[in-house]
Structures are given as C-alpha cells and as structure tokens.
C-alpha cells in the first residue's frame, strides 16, 4: 500500500508567457530564456532578484546548463533544476517547482522552456539526441522521430483500424484553434482534403502529421497561493499530477503510454473523473500520440481513439476542446518549449486570458506531456490537472 502522498494544495501556477516563435533565429537559447524571464518579471511585478527558484528545460543550451544561465542572466536562485524531459518538461518542471515551494526551498520559481533553432541545428540535435538514437535510429536516415512514429502509427492503424482521416481530424481541428492564437506559426486554414493530399514524409506520416521546429520560449511562475494573492496574480491550482518513465518497455512497439499506469492516481488526487475535464492539452508531436492520450488518460478505451475523434469536435468550442492553442502541430515546436505549450495555454484558459480561444465554462484542464524519443518510443509521460482556485 502506497503511502498517502502530499497534495499540491496551496500552490499557485501563474503568469503564462510566450516569447513569440520564429522559424529560425541567429540567437542562442539564452536570448529566448532572457526574454522569457523578462516577460515573467514585467507581467508579475516580481523583481528579478525575488525569483529564488529556476527550473529550466532546453535542448540547445549546450555546453551550458541551467547553471550557466544563472550567471548569464544575473540570477542567484537558492533552488535550481534542469529538467531534460523535453515534451514532458512542462508537467515535470511544475511538479518539481511545486514541491520546492511547498517545502519552502523556494518562494518564486520561474519555470522556463526555451530553444533556439538555427539552420541545420535540428539535424545536429537529432544526431546527438541520445546514445540509443545515435547508435540505433539516426544511422537509418529517418532524420529524427518521423520513422519511429511512422512505425507506431502504421502499427496502430493496423491494430485498431485507424485511418489517415482520423488523424486528419486532429490536425484540422487544431489548425482552426491556431487561427485564433496570435502566437501560432501557422496562419492559414487547413482542410481535410489538404491534409490527405499532403506529401508523404515517412508514410503513413505525411507533412501535416509533423510539427515544424522553430525557436521560442514558454514560461510561467510557481509560488504559494498566498504569495500570488499578495501580488494580485490570477492563477491556477494543481489538482493532481503524475509522471512515469520507460513504461511498458516490454511492448514490442508502442501502443500505450505511461499515463495508463498512473491515470487512476491522477484522477484520485483531483477527486474527479475524466468526464469532468473541460479541455485537454495533449502532447501532439504526431496525431497518433494525441489519440493515444485520449485513450490512456481514460477519455475512451484502448482502440477507441479513431471512433472518439470521429464523434467529437476538438475545437475550442467543440464537444472535446483539445490543444486550444493549436498545439505544436499548428503553433510550432520550439524545442523544449513544446513541452510547456499546453501548460501556458491551460493557464490562459483558467485565468481568462485565452481571448477568442476561451473554452466556455472551463474549470478543469488536463495537460499531458510526452517526451524524449531516445530509441523507439518516448520514455517520459506526465499529466497534470489544473483548476481554478477555490
């Protein structure tokens, strides 16, 4: 019997900031981190010297880590973490920052994910992404996770009868969400016909199944609710949070993610059922993964993903609002910031700053993370349920 865990009560998540994405930048990741922290300071009224915790996620800092960033930015935090979980870093930075605040190790933690994107830096990142990628996938020319997710998608399609159109629905609805997001890279509508007619990249993965690498940053602050109230900061609270690494490693090909292991725990922490969730931000590096999250987070059963997307609209005003920012598929993937995208968007939804993307009566949002394809699947999964403060 597991020991009763400490709840996340009393922790506020506030001040979502986005450093606008650009396709390529000549700046280093530090430039984007600097802008993100500057935006946090300006939007919160918290002085730079009052930020006493920093939780960072970035792929393009090398040879620096969060340590070098403190000197670069003139910060002197008393709590520092560098979270290397990529697409799961939003959830995981939040979990760590929340515990630091609860324990008193830090008062105000800046969670920042930022990456730059130079011409050719994506290719170079892929080649040195992990030992296993270097040894066992990169030499096969897939140029990143495209082929791994092609296998996963093809296997999923064959196993559960999914069709390209089903994935197309996810891409098309997210694009319509993105059109309401001024920060999104994609500004043109996408039709299902256009989705279907796109050129193959690594079939069954086609162009609109892939994210566009870009440069940018996402960030937010974690502090006590008490402090947030003092500062007058609108915020969300953490109702539950889970993470898992290297789950189901015995599955020969990924058909389920680690969310499935811990989802009961997640809903139990929050005291809610999946049906109570008002909107979901999945980690959408490929549509098949978004579909798996619908299943593994309990919105439908395994194999029902295709039917689920056929019977729901995923737009901001739809029956199952999902990736209301447009997601990475339409907003762009700014490296590790892609793992923060669902978090900042959820904070905007729950603090009424989502503008025309606002989901009506949104009280509970679920943010899922999925990160680090070291070999044949992503290893890191996490999820958090955020709600409005009582």
């Amino acid at each position, binding site marked *: 019997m597991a020991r009763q865990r400490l709840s996340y009560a009393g922790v506020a998540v506030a001040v979502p900031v986005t450093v606008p994405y650009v396709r390529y930048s000549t700046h280093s990741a530090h430039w984007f981190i600097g802008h993100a922290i500057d935006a946090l300071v300006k939007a919160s009224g918290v002085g730079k010297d009052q930020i006493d915790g920093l939780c960072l996620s970035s792929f393009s800092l090398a040879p620096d880590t969060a340590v070098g960033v403190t000197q670069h930015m003139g910060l002197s935090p008393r709590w520092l973490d560098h979270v290397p979980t990529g697409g799961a870093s939003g959830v995981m930075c939040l979990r760590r920052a929340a515990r630091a605040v609860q324990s008193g190790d830090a008062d105000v933690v800046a969670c920042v994910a930022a990456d730059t994107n130079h011409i050719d830096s*994506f*290719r170079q990142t*892929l*080649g*040195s992404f992990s*030992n*296993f990628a*270097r*040894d*066992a*996938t*990169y*030499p*096969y*020319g*897939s*140029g*990143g996770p*495209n*082929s*791994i997710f*092609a*296998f*996963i*998608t*093809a*296997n999923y399609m*064959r196993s559960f009868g999914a069709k390209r159109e089903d994935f197309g629905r996810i891409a098309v609805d997210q694009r319509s969400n993105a059109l309401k997001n001024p920060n999104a890279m994609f500004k043109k509508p996408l039709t299902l016909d256009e989705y279907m007619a796109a*050129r*193959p*990249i*690594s*079939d*069954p*993965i086609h162009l609109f199944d892939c994210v566009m690498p870009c440069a940018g940053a996402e960030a937010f602050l974690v502090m006590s609710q008490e402090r947030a109230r003092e500062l007058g900061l609108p915020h969300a609270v953490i109702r539950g949070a889970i993470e898992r690494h290297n789950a189901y*490693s015995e599955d*020969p*090909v990924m058909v389920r993610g680690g969310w499935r292991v811990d989802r009961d725990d997640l809903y139990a922490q929050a005291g809610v059922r999946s049906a109570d969730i008002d909107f979901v931000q999945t980690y959408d590096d490929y549509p098949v993964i978004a579909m798996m999250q619908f299943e593994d987070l309990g919105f439908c059963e395994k194999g029902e993903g295709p039917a689920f997307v056929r019977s729901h609209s995923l737009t901001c005003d739809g029956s199952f609002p999902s990736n209301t920012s447009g997601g990475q598929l339409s907003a762009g993937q700014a490296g590790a910031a892609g793992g923060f995208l669902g978090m900042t968007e959820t904070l905007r939804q729950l603090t009424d700053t989502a503008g025309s993307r606002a989901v009506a009566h949104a009280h509970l949002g679920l943010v899922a993370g999925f990160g680090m394809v070291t*070999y*044949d699947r992503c290893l890191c999964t996490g999820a958090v349920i955020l709600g409005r403060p009582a």
Partner: protein
Amino acid sequence: MTMPMMHPKRKNPVLRTQQMNLPPGARGRVALGITTAAAEGRFELQTCADCGAVQYPPRETCHKCLSPRLNWREQGGEGLLLGSTTLHHSNDLFFRERLPWQLGLVHLDAGPTVMVHLHGEVGAAPARVRVGARLDRAGQAVLIGFPNEGSAHMADDKMLREMTSDPKFRKVLVTDGKTEVGQAIVRALVKAGADIVWVGHAEPWKKMGGLDDISALPQVTLVPLDLTNGRSVTELAGAIGGKVDIVINNAEVHRNFGIASRRGTDVAKAEMDINYFGLLRLAQEFGPALKGRSADGATNATAWVNLLSIYALSNFPPHGTFSASKAAAHSLAQCLRAEMRPAGIRVINLFPGPIDDEWNQQMPPPKLAPATLASAIVKALRDGVEDIYPGDVAEEWLERWRDNPKVLERELAHGGG
C-alpha cells in the same frame, strides 16, 4: 521480387560526378560490438551471462538484471515485422540523395525490437523477416531486414547494393594475374558479372602458365603493373585510375625463411617491397581516384581488397619474414581503411591460411585452393564484410589467437599445431 539490375548507361561526362555524403557514422563504444561482428559477416547482440536476456540497443549493463556481464552472441535474426515506412524525406544528405528509402521495425524472436533498413522483397507488416547486420557506407554496422526467402536477384536491391560491393557491372583491377590465385580471382570476378577486369602483369618477360587463358576472356585486359616500381603504378593509375571501382591487391612475394635460415635481407626486402611498399604505392596512386568516385552512380567505386595472411596476426617462424611483411601490410591496411572510410570505400582484408601454391608446397594439408580463395573474395564483396579468414587453418588460428595470442605465439614457435 527485386528487378534484376540492368547494365548502367554510360555516364554523361558533362555532369558533375556526385560526391559522397556518408550516412551517420557516430556510434558509442559499446555499440561498436555490432560493427565488430558485422565486419566479419555476423549479426551479434549483447546477451546477459546471468539472466540470458538479449538486448538492443547495446548497453553497459543488463536492462533486466543489471548484470555487467554482457557477451556478444550470434543471432539467427528471425523476427516479425511490426511496421514499415518509406522515407520520402530525410535531413541526412546520404539518405536525401537516395530517397525513397524503406525502413522497418522488427520484433526479434530473441526479444528486442530493432529498427532496420528493409529489403524491397519484404512484404507488408506483419511479416516474418530475417534480420542481419551489414556495414553501411560509413563502415558502421546497421541492421537489415531480409525476406525469409529471397529471390535470385535479391542482391540487386538498391539499398543492399549500397551496403555491399557486388562486382556485378563493376570495373576491377587485380594487381597480379601471374599467379594461380590471381587467375582464379579474375575468373571468379568475370563469373560474378564484372564489367572489366584489368589484370596487372609485372615483368612480362617471365612466362607463367595460365595467363593466356584469362587474357582470352573478353572482360579481361592485361596491364603493365609492377608494384615495386612507383612509376609503373603511377602510370597505370593515370591510365585507368579514374575508372576502377574495386582494387584487389593480390600481388605478393612469399618465401619460406625465418631469420637464421636465410642470410641477408634481400628476401625480406623483396617481401616488404611488394607486400608492404607495394600496397603503399598502390594506395597512394589509386586511393584518391577511388575516393573521388565513391558515389558515382550505380557502379560507384566501392572497395579495396588486400590479400594478407593469417600469419599477419602472429608470426609463423618457418615463414618468418613473410609473416612480418604481412603484419606490416595489415597495419598499413588499417591505415588505408581509416583513410578510405570518409569516402565510403570499404577496405576488405583477407587473412587466408596456407594457399595451395608452390611456396606452401611443404605445408601439410588442408591448404586453400586458389578458386576457394577467389570465391571468398567475391562473397566478401557481395556481403560487404571487412575481414575474412578463409580456410580451415585460418579459422583455427583466428580462434586460437582470439583465445590467447600469447599461447598461439608459443604454439607457433614449436612449429605450428
């Protein structure tokens, strides 16, 4: 079915010769275990000595029981294709230039799931496949999914031809046509479909048997080539260097002397002059042109074969100076391999045991028939391996050498066996 490869058209001389962009060649040290086995034509994976788990990608510790006792064990490679994909896009230049390119994900019966280059004859998933390891153009191991039963032309698969050095339609230089070995190599190459075989002919006034037979073959052209004469090598490289796709350096001097059994150094020098310096001269003159054409169409320059000797690994005192010259050649061949690798040219080293020729007349059988050696070369080219040890004697020496080089040294000091 693989479409049989057709004889490629002549090259348009006004077009720039395509240059080589290698596939990604970086590997961690532990992953080189796969390369090591693939270089000899085997597919090996790490197997835990304690719990028996087979694992991939290679690791420093057993992922099941954390044991560090990981052995490399040969694999049958049988497995189930879980999914396949055709790359239509790649950020990597090598693949970008060769699209479309088929990949697969295979669940090996032995346990792990592996990503493979997929042979064109493998059907849609789920399908039974056989996974093997090959060296790619970067000289590093990659896994390949083969059909369980391949067709007659499966070697012509576009992907597989990139991993191998099939002599079919290629132009080959054999540096010495005067020996039985040389002549057997020439015949084997012609049989394997080589387009042109240039055959080196040193000291043409010395009449040896068999040369007329091979020079009567329509694919064969005798060329003056004396590896002791730098100018001869330079002039031949000038004449045909730009067309040679495969160099097979079989020229050697072999005498049966140790240190005390032959006064002076003339024999040792003659051995070194051909076996070592000959390779050096040849590599300096033919290497650059070969490197420049390593991505030149379907019959690109592809391989360099050295006839070394199992005596290169450990000195066989009755043939002591010969052993030393082959050890020197082996060392230089490693240098050549390193220098050719950036261009994607494979250096294949042969370590045969005693060949059935006049210089091993007094060696007891088993001895390697020249024709057997020749087929081993063609097979090595087709399989894309780096090191081969043809013949029973070579295999046994290798086993002993791997087991304990010092013990082998002692055994050889006492006359072999």
